[in-house]
């Protein structure tokens, strides 16, 4: 009982901070309860609790629930109402005064390998093409100190003072500040990007359906992957090579596509980025980054690996056998062979 009152007191003291957020639609009436959950048809437990303060420090903190969850109109809610990221929402884009939408991403995706209408696909099976939410969650604004390795709060008071002069709404200023500073850095680090791509590109079922090889395993075997694994500064992840520098991260194309960053003739330009291999010549495009040990695809690599495996086993095991024979002989010096 005592514990309950302490909790209530804490909640009461915190309430001014928790309840500042917009909730015109009153969704939090139910969704504020931590235990709001169920087990769905597939046996997965699903949690419908929304942490209000966490949500409001995310990039979508100023978007109303119903603008993404547009399929929901009544209580109890309809079944299978997935969010549609291409919805227009009530945020206005200040340069054009139009309602904001992620529609342009769709254009980039339609020009990339990640949709079933792309002409250079090995197998256009529409089951397994990524939707927005397969790669994106609802990320929090990462304060700048994560990138700069500083301890004080990410928002520089000096910079905020410049905004304060004209803009009066501090909540808006902070939000806008985060909006810009968030985009100055990649929101995912190398390992997070590899882990994101890994969910499909290291999934054997999907790979066999798309007639692809495990690109993550082969990446990790290269120095690029190893450098990322050990947090070497400036190590490249999937997007660094597979997207042209001036394009959206969504524009990943086939190596057969002349517009692609890894098109065989232009590949060297991607390698020759500043900070990577700036003195690279076109010949560097001949180095293969996703080598699988396969006789038909990579004959030189296959026979080298085969030769060295044979050499290693052929040298090591006979030596190990000799060693064991000698040990046995030395431990039991008096055994006589039966005649």
């Amino acid at each position: 009982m005592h514990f309950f009152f302490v909790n209530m007191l804490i909640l009461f003291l915190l309430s001014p901070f928790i309840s500042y957020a917009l909730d015109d639609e009153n969704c939090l009436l139910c969704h504020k309860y931590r235990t709001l959950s169920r087990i769905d048809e597939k046996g997965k437990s699903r949690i419908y609790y929304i942490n209000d303060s966490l949500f409001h420090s995310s990039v979508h903190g100023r978007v109303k629930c119903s603008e993404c969850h547009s399929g929901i109109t009544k209580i109890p809610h309809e079944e299978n109402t997935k969010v549609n990221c291409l919805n227009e929402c009530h945020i206005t884009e200040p340069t054009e005064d139009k309602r904001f939408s992620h529609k342009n991403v769709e254009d980039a995706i339609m020009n990339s390998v990640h949709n079933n209408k792309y002409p250079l696909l090995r197998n256009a099976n529409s089951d397994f093409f990524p939707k927005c939410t397969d790669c994106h969650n609802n990320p929090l604004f990462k304060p700048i100190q994560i990138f700069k390795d500083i301890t004080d709060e990410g928002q520089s008071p000096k910079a905020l003072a410049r905004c304060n002069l004209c803009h009066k709404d501090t909540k808006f200023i902070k939000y806008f500040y985060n909006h810009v500073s968030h985009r100055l850095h990649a929101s995912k680090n190398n390992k997070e990007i590899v882990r994101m791509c890994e969910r499909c590109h290291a999934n054997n079922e999907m790979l066999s359906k798309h007639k692809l090889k495990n690109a993550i395993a082969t990446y990790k075997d290269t120095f690029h992957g190893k450098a990322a694994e050990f947090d070497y500064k400036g190590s490249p992840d999937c997007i660094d090579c597979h997207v042209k520098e001036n394009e959206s991260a969504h524009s990943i194309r086939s190596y057969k596509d002349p517009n692609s960053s890894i098109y065989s003739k232009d590949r060297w330009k991607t390698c020759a980025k500043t900070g990577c291999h700036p003195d690279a010549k076109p010949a560097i495009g001949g180095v293969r980054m996703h080598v699988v040990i396969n006789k038909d695809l990579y004959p030189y690599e296959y026979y080298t690996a085969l030769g060295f495996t044979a050499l290693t086993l052929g040298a090591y095991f006979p030596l190990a056998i000799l060693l064991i024979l000698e040990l046995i002989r030395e431990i039991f010096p008096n055994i006589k062979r039966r005649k």
Partner: protein
Amino acid sequence: MNCLPLVKIKGSQKYYLKLSHGQRYQHFILMTTFILLILTGFPLKFYYYDWAKTVMKFMGGPEVTTIIHRAAGLTMVGLFFFHWYYLFRNLFKYYLIPSLSKKSFSFKGMMKFIYYSPMFPRVKDIKDFIEFLKYALFITDEKPKHERFHWREKFDYWAVFWGIPVLGFTGWILWFETLSTQYFPGWVINISLIAHSDEALLAASVILVWHMYNAHVNYDKFPMSPLFLTGYLPEDIMKHEYYLEWERINELVKKFPELQVNDDEYKQRMMEYETMVANYFAEQESDEGEKI
């Protein structure tokens, strides 16, 4: 073998010279660079194990290990070239110059000199190996009698002799990847990576298991052979492992006793000398006292 005694008597135990100063230093450089290269290279090869991250952190992270690895690699390749120089120097010093001054030089003689140089594989090694197999399989009780270096040591030596060029050359290609693409097709860089890491695994497994066993963990020598530190082997190991050499050196010492230095005797003499000196000063002091 310049100025070290061939046989040393210490603690009434005989020690036989196996490695000269230079050879010991060569081994030391090879050993340290080898260990550094393993410590900085293997975490990369086995990045998927947990220990890889620990070792990498211990060695200072990837920014530091790249430098250590390259410096150690360069040193090892430098040692390889030095060893070639060393081999030719020996050829000049022990065959070409004496034979030319005696005007007995012949190509066949030179080949014979090379064939009988201590590390060169010869027919006797094959015979020794067969003898060893017979011994190991309980067919005979006789162990093969070895000369200066036996087939196991020669195997180690030639493994390194072929390993360093392979690892050095592929390492050089991987180090200067953009430069090497200008001279080689792309797949050369790919197979260099495979060759470098596989050859390193082979070298490390052979050295850490086979060489460590033969040199240190072996029945006779456990826990450690003093050879790589002192350059000398005690008589029991000599007799056991290098019987023919032991015989040969003993005969040589009989003929030229100056090749043997008795450390015990020397120590005894030194102590006598020290007491002599001490007595001398003590006497002088007492003389002075008397005078006053």
